[in-house]
């Protein structure tokens, strides 16, 4: 038997090792936890999105108002 064959034999034996499985109850617990984590992420994204939806027009409107007021003030100063 060559070294190569011996090595292949080792990998073959390793591939034949039995699968180790998790307890079914534990599997469900893990699934429930990552579902919860996923839900938290979705909620966080929704919160960020809704905050952006509110803040964007408020900030845009606010800056526009300041700009317009500044222009009006300048015009009144010139007169």
């Amino acid at each position, binding site marked *: 038997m060559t070294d190569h064959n*011996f*090595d292949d034999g*080792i*990998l073959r*034996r*390793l*591939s*034949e*090792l*039995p*699968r*180790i*499985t*998790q307890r079914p109850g*534990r*599997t469900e*617990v*893990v*699934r429930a*936890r*990552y*579902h919860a*984590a*996923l839900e938290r*992420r*979705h909620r966080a994204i929704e919160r960020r999105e809704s905050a952006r939806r509110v803040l964007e027009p408020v900030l845009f409107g606010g800056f526009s108002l300041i700009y317009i007021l500044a222009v009006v003030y300048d015009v009144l100063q010139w007169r």
Partner: protein
Amino acid sequence: MTAMDRESELALVGRLRAEDREAFDQLYRAFNDRLFGFLVRLSGNRETAEDLVEETWLRVVIHASRLRPDTMLAPWLFRIARNIYYSYCRSRRLETGLAIDLVGLWLLAPQLPSPLESASASEMQQRIESALASLPAASREVLLLVGVEGLEPAEAAAVCGITAEAFRQRLHRARLLLASRLERSQSAAVSRMSEATT
């Protein structure tokens, strides 16, 4: 991933990036047992592996949206699991070269033809498990990734974060080390048997 071609894998990656819950379930069904087995054999402890595999899935949820569209899922998942294991060892200053009693890990083998063959196969498998557990973590992980999990050497090298050439050398050394440990355990078994018969 057992029966998933590259096209389906890429479609799944797309759905994971969109954080589709069904996609996570599909990934979980395909990989949970493999990741768990990998972590049990890497850590040498079922309870630890249960915690680590849970942490792995939580990490998957956090990082899935940042996946590259061409990601290969098996190496990505095993890399997360491996990194979590090493972080766990660092946090507890654990020696990663474990030599443990694997009786607790021993589960039913797949169907075997006869009780006699079953007994001898199980004994051989137990010897392999023990020899594997006695190796340093770096050797153990390369053998687990290629031999048990069937990853291609290039994929396994990516999991370990080393070059393909460095991986090939590490795999070669690990095979030799495992072979020598198996040989040693075989001679010990033979001498025990001869002592018992005399």
